[in-house]
């Protein structure tokens, strides 16, 4: 009789571990998926920047320093490995782009260029999408981290080495995300 009870407890425990294991796999996969969403948008931004620089060069060639800054920030962002590196590089890139658009304010011909306007619109949209993807990623990471830290699921997390993931933090926070790079004309 006692043997049966012990067996029962072991079976229930094993089922619980399996359920928890699967849950962690699901959470981890979701976070990775969400990260690839961010990656897609980041790549789109990297692709748009060379076009932008070419267009700006045609009108404001002697803004070398600003242009170089953007190019440098882009290269750095593309080489980022960890989430924290990505976040830092993206903040730099956003800042560099902001000053580029600020500089372009003093070139009326540039501001009238349809190509430039189109690129600016695309970049603004991409930045919005990065923010959206970032929030989805952070939501998923939060779920994973809570599960990995709270008792008793943290025991299973430790056994199977399910690691906590880093949040993707951008400097300006939620409020800036609502009104991204507002370049007024």
């Amino acid at each position: 009789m006692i043997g049966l009870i012990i067996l029962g407890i072991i079976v229930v425990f094993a089922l619980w571990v399996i359920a928890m294991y699967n849950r962690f796999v699901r959470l981890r996969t979701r976070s990775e998926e969400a990260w690839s969403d961010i990656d897609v948008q980041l790549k789109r931004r990297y692709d748009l920047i060379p076009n932008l620089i070419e267009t700006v060069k045609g009108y404001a060639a002697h803004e070398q320093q600003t242009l170089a800054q953007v190019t440098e920030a882009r290269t750095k962002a593309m080489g980022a490995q960890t989430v924290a590196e990505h976040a830092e590089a993206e903040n730099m890139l956003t800042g560099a782009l902001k000053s580029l658009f600020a500089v372009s304010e003093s070139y009326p011909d540039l501001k009238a260029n349809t190509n430039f306007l189109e690129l600016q619109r695309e970049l603004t949209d991409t930045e919005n999408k990065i923010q959206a993807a970032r929030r989805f990623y952070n939501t998923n990471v939060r779920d994973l981290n809570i599960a990995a830290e709270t008792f008793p699921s943290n025991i299973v997390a430790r056994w199977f080495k399910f690691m906590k993931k880093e949040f993707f933090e951008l400097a300006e926070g939620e409020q800036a995300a609502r009104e991204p790079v507002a370049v007024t004309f």
Partner: protein
Amino acid sequence: MPMAANLYTHQSGNVAKTWLLMSLFFVLIMAIGLFASWYVNDSSILYIAVFVSIIMNIASYWWSDKIVLSLTGAKPASKETHYELYTLVENLAITAGLPMPKVYVIEDAAPNAFATGRNKEHAVVAFTTGLLCTLNRTELEGVAAHELAHIGNRDILLQTVVVVLVGFVTLLSDMLLRISATGGGDRDRGNQVQLILMIAGFILALLAPLVATLMQLAISRKREFLADATGAMLTRYPEGLASALEKISQSSVQMKRANHATAHLFISDPFGEKKGRERINFLHKIFLTHPPVQERVAALRGTR
């Protein structure tokens, strides 16, 4: 996380309710068919009833979104034609982790919006041109987030299926009423007419409370409040939706193609606010199930 658990149980509840609704409808049509065939003593009516109810159920699952869109006269919007709206919905879909829904626009001065479709892969969100004119960006974002919340919470299938089923039931009762009204003058076939009248009366008596129950199933107040809350979590800015709801409720314009079958889909009552209108017809009273806007706004602002 009690919030998440709540949402998941809500989702499976919706799927169960859709099944219940469809089987109820099936049984109802069968019962009518059985009754009619027994009364007229002709079993072919029963076969027709079975056929009709099967077709209706299939149609309401596969084509109800298209039926709803054509009922409301919605036109597809693309990234080129409605850049702001399209990208706004796109961004919210990314935040919610939902596939991009199709975006539709309805030519109508009354500000309103709804979501439809059988699942999140085949979802549609529609906005009236009046809404796009009246609201600013954050308010529009709030409304779009509310509609995406309906998609994410799987409210749309149930609500859309209700459109077709309720639409059919109202059509049927309408038809029967008309038959009994026009048949009254025919003296030679008095017996026949009386019989039809009796059937009509029986069916109507059966249908009215049922329709009301169906509508309550579909538009529980909980559902709207939950979508408001989920939407606010998406934008992280409840004030946007709150002020949008206020603006929408202040507009007294009635939608051009307001329809009892589709009314519950919309974010606010397409028949407009009923302030100072002395005559509210019986049918509308049944369908009057939108939670009061003031309560929703208060809940969003946390002042309730």
